[in-house]
């Protein structure tokens, strides 16, 4: 059993109080809205993609600390990366949060993002951590709105 306090201490102290890349992009090329209808997390993600590179990224919205910290760290991570590399991170993060990717033994590019590995032991919070990544995926696919329920349910998919 993960001590959720430990998880909180690591991720929220910094990113929840001082989220990176918080706000809107005036020159966004992609914009997507992510919704966690069951718990009310609601974020907007702006991307500026030039060629194949995510030049800048910003998010805003109302969400719990896990979602906000995940979004903040995500933006810091994907800024300057290629769309393909960002999409690979989306897959790896989703795998880590749902338990299909073992960060200790499976090769991955998650780096500091592995602080979220503990959410797999908090089933009710998995979607909070995944929502920003889900929204990033939707944004690069030019989908306007994405929800963690229904066809896109990450928890059902991984079950």
């Amino acid at each position, binding site marked *: 059993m993960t001590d959720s306090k430990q998880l909180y201490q690591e991720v929220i102290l910094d990113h929840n109080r001082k989220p990176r890349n918080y706000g809107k992009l005036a020159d966004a090329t992609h914009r997507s809205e992510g919704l966690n209808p069951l*718990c009310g997390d609601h974020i907007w993600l702006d991307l500026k993609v030039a060629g194949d590179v995510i030049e800048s990224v910003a998010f805003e919205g109302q969400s719990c*600390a896990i979602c906000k910290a995940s979004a903040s760290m995500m933006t810091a991570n994907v800024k300057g990366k290629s769309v393909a590399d960002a999409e690979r991170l989306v897959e790896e993060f989703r795998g880590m949060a749902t338990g299909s990717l073992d960060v200790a033994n499976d090769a991955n590019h998650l780096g500091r993002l592995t602080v979220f590995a503990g959410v797999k032991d908090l089933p009710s919070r998995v979607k909070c951590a995944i929502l920003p990544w889900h929204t990033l995926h939707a944004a690069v696919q030019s989908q306007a709105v994405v929800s963690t329920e229904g066809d896109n349910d990450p928890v059902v998919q991984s079950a």
Partner: protein
Amino acid sequence: MNAANALKTPEPTSAFDVERYRADFPILANVHPHGKPLVYLDNGASSQMPQPVIDRLVRYQTHEHANIHRGVHTLSETATKAYENARRQIQGFLNAKEDREIIFTSNVTDSINLVAHGFGRAFIGEGDEIIITHLEHHANIVPWQMLCEERGAKLRVAPIDDSGALILEAYEKLFSPRTKFVSVTHVSNALGTINPVRQMIDIAHRHGVPIMIDGAQAVQHMPVDVQALDCDFYAFTGHKIFGPTGIGVLYGKAEWLEKMKPFRGGGDMILSVTFEKTTYNAIPFKFEAGTPPIAQAIALGEAVEYVQRIGLDRIAAHEHELLAYATDRLKALDGVRIYGTAPHKAAVISFYVNDVHPHDVGTLLNEEGVAVRTGHHCAQPVMQRFGIPATARASFAFYNRLEEVDVLVEGIRKVQKLFA
């Protein structure tokens, strides 16, 4: 010393022996979330089951089970008798005039859908209006919206004030000759507000309109007498009153039930079937198509007997004490806001810890062994009314101790410290 410390756990003033009743609930002693004693404050979502109800389930499955209303063999007769006895136990519990006015459903959602379908399709037409309140659970909104969409009818919503209390005058003003039905909650699941249902029923009847009461959050907290209330329909669910899931109740006045269309077609709800014509069975069977949740109905009968043995007046008094103490202690915490401060409330407290999302509060309280509900409580319009996405909710049952309020408060302080 701050104000919160000054509030000491009061000595229980009533003669209500919480420990004696807690001993009836094995789960309260069996479960230790994160190694801590379970402080179960999520009774509004689902309550726990006492040993006599568990025993009744086991006895049914080990000695009495067969399908009902069919077999001529001993077991079928035993099961039928037990099932129909449960109906009479519910009749007594609600003080319904006749046992045929009690229909077993699967939950309150099912009961409301039954009425929306059975009454709605028989009596609601284009341009007609249905009144609900701003306090409703989604279960008492969506079926009516679906009906309105289908029939071209209109939903009217009675407003609440900033305390979460219904504005009775505004409710009355919604009535017009187009009003055909009213469906309102007895107790708000999100805020705990107790609606003035007696007056609301009188007002509806003054306008010649039948009214349904959603009692999902009421029957476990206070005595309910459907004849004294004179409501046309009343619904409650088993698992919130110490019974099993999968069983709900709809009380309806016989005169209405007889005029209504059946909800589901199938076995048991018919008198005769040919390919040309089916003759429906009498009430309540007309509304109980297919094999019902027999074991659950019988166990629910035992559950309502159980609360009546304790006494709903005594339960209400103890819970009032819990509510008053919890309200005082939470109010004394800086940075905690209570949503729902109506003068008449059941033992439900929705609260918001400043700058901390309720889901984080819930996850961290769980570390202390405290189970609360977080989210919009299937009452998004209530959340919108107060401009918040969600709250944390502590909902009490008679088996909760005053000391458990202290554990909750201490847990909230730890959350605040972590987020400071």
